[in-house]
């Protein structure tokens, strides 16, 4: 297992829309049996990363290696074979399925595209199998139905069935539950967890930190086209080191907080992707920024391991650099008190000391 190349390696990926750098030097690795959640606000480049990973967008630079082979430079038959190993699940199941296709047509389409079998009976068996694995009960009864006859949750399961019917190595799920009723989300997320356990590598785009925490093996936080923090969810969520991650966490509604105390809000807007600030991208909004933040564009750095499991925790923040004066987790808040003269609410989740 260890000598095998990871199922999905996104390597120094750049995606540009004209002058706008939607994705800038992003590297994410997902191994088989691993569920990696990419978190961030709208426009942070997480969906562009997903689109580039499945070959729908042509990146300006970088590579997307599926089981060791680059998809970006692949052409013709090789590309088709790679696309067979990596499948996309879209955010909106109502839009993602052709309204003129029956459930059977939808799930069988990848089989036909990749000419898996010429036998209609075998194809139907594969379709039914995939539907059942995707948690569609009594799948045979659904085969002749059309998308408009089904609910969002059912449609998303059918889209998932269509994505797994080819037995792919990698699934890219672009906000797979955000369009679903809250009551249905847990079931679909559980399905992703089961697929992960069956050995598929899953890259899930989400803006829901709680989802990420519950189901992901690793969380990647993106801001303005960059990865700013990455690590195991328990580590990232319990001791976030990047001020943006801290802000994201503080924005999660907390029923225990009293109503009178206002929800902390991050000031300002994400930067214009066509005119990025020279230093850290988060610096203009950062409550704890230092003078050097406007000059230095911080790279991802490994944090000293705080847990005995040797989980890798990467942070792109000057304050989190090894050797920086304030390595302890509490430091940003203290610095904020000093520099701004006001306590930062952003780190209120930080620990019992606050």
């Amino acid at each position, binding site marked *: 297992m260890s000598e095998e190349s990871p199922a999905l390696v996104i390597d120094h990926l750049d995606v540009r829309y004209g002058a706008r750098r939607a994705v800038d030097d992003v590297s994410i690795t997902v191994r088989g049996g691993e569920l990696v959640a990419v978190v961030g606000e709208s426009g942070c480049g997480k969906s562009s990363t997903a689109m580039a990973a499945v*070959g729908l967008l042509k990146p300006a630079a970088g590579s997307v290696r599926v089981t060791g082979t680059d998809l970006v430079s692949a052409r013709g038959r090789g590309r088709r074979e790679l*696309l067979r190993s990596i499948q*996309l699940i*879209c955010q909106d199941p109502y839009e993602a399925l052709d309204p003129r296709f029956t459930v059977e047509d939808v799930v069988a*389409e*990848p089989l036909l595209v*990749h000419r898996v079998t010429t036998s209609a009976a075998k194809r139907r068996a594969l379709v039914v199998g995939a539907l059942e694995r995707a948690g569609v009960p009594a799948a045979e009864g659904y085969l002749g139905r059309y998308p408009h006859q089904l609910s969002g949750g059912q449609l998303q399961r059918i889209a998932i069935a*269509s994505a797994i019917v080819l037995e792919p190595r990698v699934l890219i799920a672009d906000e797979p539950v955000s369009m679903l009723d809250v009551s249905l989300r847990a079931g679909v997320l559980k399905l992703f967890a089961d697929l992960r356990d069956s050995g598929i590598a899953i890259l899930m785009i989400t803006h829901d930190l709680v989802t990420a925490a519950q189901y992901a093996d690793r969380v990647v936080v993106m801001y303005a086209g960059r990865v700013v923090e990455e690590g195991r969810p328990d580590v990232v969520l319990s001791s976030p080191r990047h001020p943006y991650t801290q802000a994201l966490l503080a924005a999660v509604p907390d029923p225990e907080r009293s109503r009178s105390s206002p929800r902390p809000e991050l000031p300002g807007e994400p930067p214009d992707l066509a005119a990025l600030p020279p230093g850290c991208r988060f610096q203009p909004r950062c409550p704890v920024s230092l003078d050097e933040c406007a000059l230095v564009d911080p790279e991802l750095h490994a944090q000293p391991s705080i847990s005995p499991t040797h989980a890798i925790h990467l942070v792109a923040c000057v304050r989190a650099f090894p050797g920086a004066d304030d390595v302890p987790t509490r430091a940003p808040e203290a610095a904020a008190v000093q520099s701004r003269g006001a306590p930062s609410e952003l780190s209120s989740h930080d620990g019992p000391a606050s």
Partner: protein
Amino acid sequence: MSALAESARSTRRTARRPTPGLVFSIAVLSLFTAGALLAPALFPAGSGAQVGDPYAFPSSSHVLGLDDAGSDVVAELLWGARVSLLVGVLAGVMTVVLGGIAGLVSGYFGGWFETLLMRTTDFFLVIPVLPVMIVVAALYGTRLVNTIVIIGLLSWPGTARVVRSQAKTVRQRLYVRRARAMGASHGRTLIQHVLPQVVPLLGASTALAIGHAIFFEAALRFLGLADRSTTSWGQMIADSFERGAITAEAWWVLLPPGLAIGLVLLSTTVIGRQLEQRTNPRLSVSHLGLRSFRRPTPVQEAQ
């Protein structure tokens, strides 16, 4: 969103009920088609066979009277329908096939290919049809095939434009992108996902194109730019003008072909527009720009 879907659904439901105009149009076209198919059985002598005196008044044996050659106007009309409808259908289909392919491909692929095709379309759009037809008829003769090909070649740009805009919107749909991500080829994506969304529009375009082709054929006949060995409705009109039907006050010779062309053109237009409205309930103004219609709002629907 559900309210929108609801209103779209109810719009479709109201549109399903055939309007009197649609029933009438289908009846007219069926009647003429049946007549054209039955012409050899009803009038085995063919067109142009003399059965009585020239310009004989309508009578019980010849309901529409006789023309300048003493042949039955009904026989002429039905035999003429064969040519008129044949030219209409073939040129119409040619129009839609050419325009459909050009529109589909340019709308789907976009980029420089689209620009190239659309500039070609513009070029064909600004060409005045009749003068070109006259030149071509003069250069290549007046055979029926030529007539069909010229009409087809000169009328596809309109269809191409309509189809292109539809293909452009379908291309952006998530299921089209998903098919591409799954590894489907452009050809497969076009045929499986884009074409079915455009087919209803092609149907509407075909109906409209058939009407126009019949009209153009008549115009060419009237100008004497067609094969005289066959008759058509346009030929009947041309003949009645040239051979003094008007001075003979033989209105029964002139009116039937004129009315036939008018009725068929009206019917194809009605059918084409209805198909267009049914398949695109959000369309507020047809591409012909003849008449706009309002989409019933959910409030109006509820009443």
